[in-house]
């Protein structure tokens, strides 16, 4: 029952693996993981929500902050593994304008070529 955001890297592709609950308490580990990817100068940040089934407003606010930071640094952001409900919420807050929503990791890899 992981509660923290983990990161992994494949060349310039950095993954943020989000836990089941994405809430205010996730912020610290999310930033720690994101900063590690930023240090490694990844060009693409892939947000993996396959394990997540609860994102509250604080959690979505956290995603907004991360996406804003990544966009400012010129990084592409992908998000996958979200249910239709959370895809709707991402759209409502304008996140879909700033990141690429894809169904799964493979689709993302296909699009990245």
């Amino acid at each position: 029952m992981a509660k923290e955001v983990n990161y992994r890297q494949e060349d310039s592709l950095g993954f943020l693996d989000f836990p089941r609950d994405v809430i205010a308490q996730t912020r610290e580990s999310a930033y720690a993981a994101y900063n590690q990817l930023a240090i490694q100068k990844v060009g693409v940040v892939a947000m993996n929500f396959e394990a997540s089934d609860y994102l509250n407003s604080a959690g979505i606010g956290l995603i907004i902050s991360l996406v804003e930071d990544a966009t400012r640094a010129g990084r592409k952001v992908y998000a996958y593994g979200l249910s239709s409900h959370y895809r709707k919420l991402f759209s409502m807050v304008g996140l879909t304008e700033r990141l690429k929503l894809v169904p799964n990791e493979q689709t993302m890899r296909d699009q990245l070529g």
Partner: protein
Amino acid sequence: MLRRIPLSVGAVIGVILIVGLIGGLTYFASARIGSTVLEQFRSQQLQVLTSVGQQTEAYFGELTLEGIQLAQRSEVQANAGSRVDPSKASILTSLIENDRVDVVKSVSRFNINGTLLYTCNIETTVNSSGQTVYLCHEFENDADTVDYSIPAELVAQTENQDQENIFEFEPVLYRVRHNELNSVSFNLLILPVEADTSVTQYLVYELNMEAIFADILDFVVDDLRTTDSGQLWVFDYEGNVTFSADSGRADGHHTSLSEYSESEIAAKRNGEPEAEAFVENGIDHQGAFVPADILGRKFLLVRSQHTDEAQAAVSSDLRIILIIAIATVLLLAAGSWVGIRRIFAERTRREAESGMRQTARSLLEVSRALNSSLELQTVLDRILIELQNLIPYYSASILLLNEAGLLEVSAHRGEDKEVHEGGAFRVEEARAAREVIARGHPVIINDTINDERWTQLPNSETRSWIGLPLRIFDRSVGVLNINSNIPIRFTMQDLELAEAFSDQASVALQNARLHDREVTRIEEELTVARGIQSSLMPSTPPESLHLDIAFASTPARQVSGDFFQLIPLNNGRLAIFVGDVSGKGMPAALIMAIMNTTLRDEVTRQTDPAELLNVLNERLLDRLLQNQMNSAMVAAFFDPATQTLGIANAGMVQPYLRTVDNSDWDFVDVGGYPLGASQRANYYGTNIAFIAGSMLILFSDGIIEAQNLRGEFFGFERFEALLESMPPDIDAHTAVDQIMQATRHHIGEEDLQDDITVMVIRALEVVEPSKPKVLTSSSPSVELPMLHLDIPQRDNGSDHRIISTHPERIAQNEGLLMPRENVELFIPSRLGFEKIARNAASALATEMGFSPDRIEDLKTAVSEACMNAIEHGNLEDRATSVNVLLSASPDHLEVRVEDRGRQYIPNPLPPPGGVDKSRGWGMFFIQNLMDEVEITKLPEGGNIVKMTIYLGMEEPTDNDTVADEPSADASEWIEQNE
């Protein structure tokens, strides 16, 4: 009278002794004067000068505050570059009002580049009526200027700031040189002033430091006038003498501290206050050195005096003090012969009055203390404690008649413990006590040795005794013994007092006896009930080849509302239940007993847990509603053939599961509201693979909500952390033990607030060949939908019943429409508990036939509303709760979330994603996901967020998911980032 004469004589002797002592001390003190007198001088001077240093700091603090207030006046701020009268008049008024016309020479204004804007020189004249008039004199033309400028470093510092914004700097004190003459300096107090253009400028006070210090040090200078050699200096932060004063009788031996180097002066300026001896021009001095912090700059105040003069002054002081002390004592001695008798007579009278008042007060306090408890033994012990305050005794005891007619020592206090070793004795053996009981009146024996009524017990030292009857409804039930080891100790006054006390004690005893009997009766009944209840629940887990099961349950009261059950079924299957009846004590236990009977009756007829819960709800609903109770219950059926667990949940905390392939704990996502809460509950279940090594934990909410003395819940975080710490191969018994211990450890000294129950089930490796598994090992926790619907119509084959308000479907809905049903929850004001409300809302919406998408919308909205209430409404005050009311109507579901509001939800709501783009989205989601939202501010404090979703309303699609456009701020954020 007899007692007063020795007192008078004693007082006279005391006075003589004091005079002798003073004389002796004087003799010894004189011998030590030489060595201590200078230390005393230094100490005095240091104290005086330190006080002066503090006054100096305060003076400059006030001056700065006045300057800041002046700078904030609108007429000063409004005239950034002008020399017009309002600004001048304001400056002059400020200086006159604050009596600063003598210490502030001028006030000038500079812009941020250091260019002079205007100045106001304070001038004093006398008018034709002879009155002093102050003027603010300006320069005649623009070519004129002041003789100083703003220090370059300050200009450089402020120029680097963003001039469009208000620049804030602290008021500073500067010593600056004359623009042309190096020998002339100015002391400037420079303050920030915000002009109407929002650009910071400088307001500069030119200070007359000598006048300031002469004012502050006035009384120290006066003191110097009386000395032959006193000196006073103030060194500024550059080491210059800002102020100095000498003795009024200068003898040509002035010191200048020339023996001290600049660095030594600087060290003292930055050090601690100190006093020391030093030699100057061959003459010994005593000096006090005190630093003063003025607007961040250290000044040094110094006071010195020749040593021989200082010694002479202090010695003189000491002699005067001694003379006064001796004279005072002699006066007292003389006065004692004349008036001491009268003084003692008056004191005795006052003591008597005071004693009576004290007695009355004590009796009142005794009454309060005795009646503050109903617990019998506590009352008895308190009687003896309070008695000691009224009538001091050697020992005291309370003898109560027991059912056998024996006098039983029920309480004892004092030193003669041997007396009551026997515990109980016959009334006939204690004749004195028998007399008290028989007569119902107090008895006093002041000579126990020679009084035939007294039976002296072995080792007893009692020489005087008072026996008081203790009565209940006018019947003597015991004796209060007051013992003294001194003969003829008690007076009639003591007896009267004891009788008054005895009446108070009897009332308390009567109440305690009644209470004790009532408690005993209830406890007996509860013990019987607990026995019955225990017999209904298994004492040991059933033997099983497939499962390792352990459980524990602790009631908050003697009888628990929690229950658990393990019922073997055919084909080796096992039905497992853990439940929690609302409320505690006897009512909960009775419902639990009914529940258990119904459960046993139905369990053999049903094949899966969800169906069983449906039937139980149907059968128990009326009874539960009648008693305004409900019961949560999680039901699990284990099938060894398939190694699966079917689980359904009626309002219990979701069970936790750890599988072999996934070492992380996860909860089993099944929910529903409690049995008895809804007329048409349709519970759903899930099937999970439960192969060897898997572990399931069922528990009551008493564990999560267990509170310690600080009001902290045990909570999900601690619970999950505990589960994470358990090794994969932990057995069920150890797991239960660890959970119970952790909960107990968390509660500490606090009483248990709710029953706590936990059951752990671990799947074992079975040696015998088992039947093929239905589920593959690669997906051990595949969830199989087990929704059971008794409603014929479905929506496009969906598993969820849809009750529509669409006209074509209204007819189909007939007969399905539910009356308005309420489910009410109170969740603690702690983040995380919003999930409980979310799950309850989800369960109810499922029942009503909302589509999965709409249920997700509802879950998010309910979560956000509860989080707002917890975090912003109740400020996470755990003493408060959030009230969630779910109201199901035929065509809509209304959710009302109410907090106890320390903060109001703003109306209108601020747009989300404002300054901090990550915040403020909660209410945005609620408004966009629900069909109707209403926010009400309660007059007594609190908010109600009412949200409604309608059945059959158009589902938002992915393309037009948002009814409203994102707020202006959200759009702005998108644009900014594009």
